[in-house]
């Protein structure tokens, strides 16, 4: 069991997190914009998350909190 939480309005949509996820579950929410006007990153299939922290480690804006 693992979970990632995005501080969505802090996301600047740089997409770096999407490139490091071993499960390829981090994706940009192309259907909406956050307060800053970026498409934020999101995880839809949270049950596949293994809590590896990779997305959080590469995030330049400390958007992601990881629980395991």
């Amino acid at each position, binding site marked *: 069991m693992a979970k990632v939480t995005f501080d969505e309005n802090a996301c600047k949509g740089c997409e770096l997190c999407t490139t490091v996820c071993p499960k390829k579950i981090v994706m940009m929410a192309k259907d909406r914009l956050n307060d800053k006007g970026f498409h934020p990153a999101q995880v839809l299939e949270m049950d596949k998350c293994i809590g590896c922290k*990779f997305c959080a480690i*590469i995030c330049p804006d400390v958007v992601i909190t990881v*629980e395991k």
Partner: protein
Amino acid sequence: MEIVFQRPKALADVPFHYCSGCSHGIVHRLVAEVIDELDIAGDTIGVAPVGCSVFAYNYFNVDMQQAAHGRAPAVATGVKRANPDNIVFTYQGDGDLAAIGTAETVHAAARGENITVIFINNAIYGMTGGQMAPTTLVGQVTQTSPYGRKIEAQGYPIRMSEMLATLEGPSFIKRCSVDSVKNINDTKNAIKKAFQNQMDKKGFSMVEILSTCPTNWGLSPVESLGWLRENMIPHYPLGVYKDIDGGEKV
């Protein structure tokens, strides 16, 4: 479930002003994580440079002093000498550390000044809008090397880690990169060692961190990581350049 990754306490709850995908944010967070893990926030003084990271004083929950362009190692020297028990770090970019502040950098290192220097090398001037840096690669196009950096006209890029490693003062010099999770973890370990060395009074430590500048490179954040890997790392090899503890060198 418990939290296994969250915002470090030493990082102020203020959003970074940096561009999307800029690696300053990663390095800021690593420095804050190290400060938390070593439990030194109450004793740490940071020195902010002039450059994109000029506002670094807003981002750390520690005492901070903002320095003139290039002078951070001199300012840090003054802070450290005034109170040798404080942990003093500078956070500097390539223009600040390797151009206008070369003298301050070299002499703080030569003195073995017991401070920690975090050196962000992204091969370009970010703050002023993408001019040639002392670390700009040969052939790299910038606003002030519009035809690509030419050796005949602009000379060679400076390898600061290699240069400073020739001095006796430094205790630890390592070049890292933030292009991958593995390298980011490695960078954090290096930063931690650089702070630990200061706590152990071993003298000057510097971590050079190859970083991206998507805005001025004209690449997406993801493409920037690739450009860093393909162009910067071959010219600026990663690894330890000086370690008085006898760590394995490049």
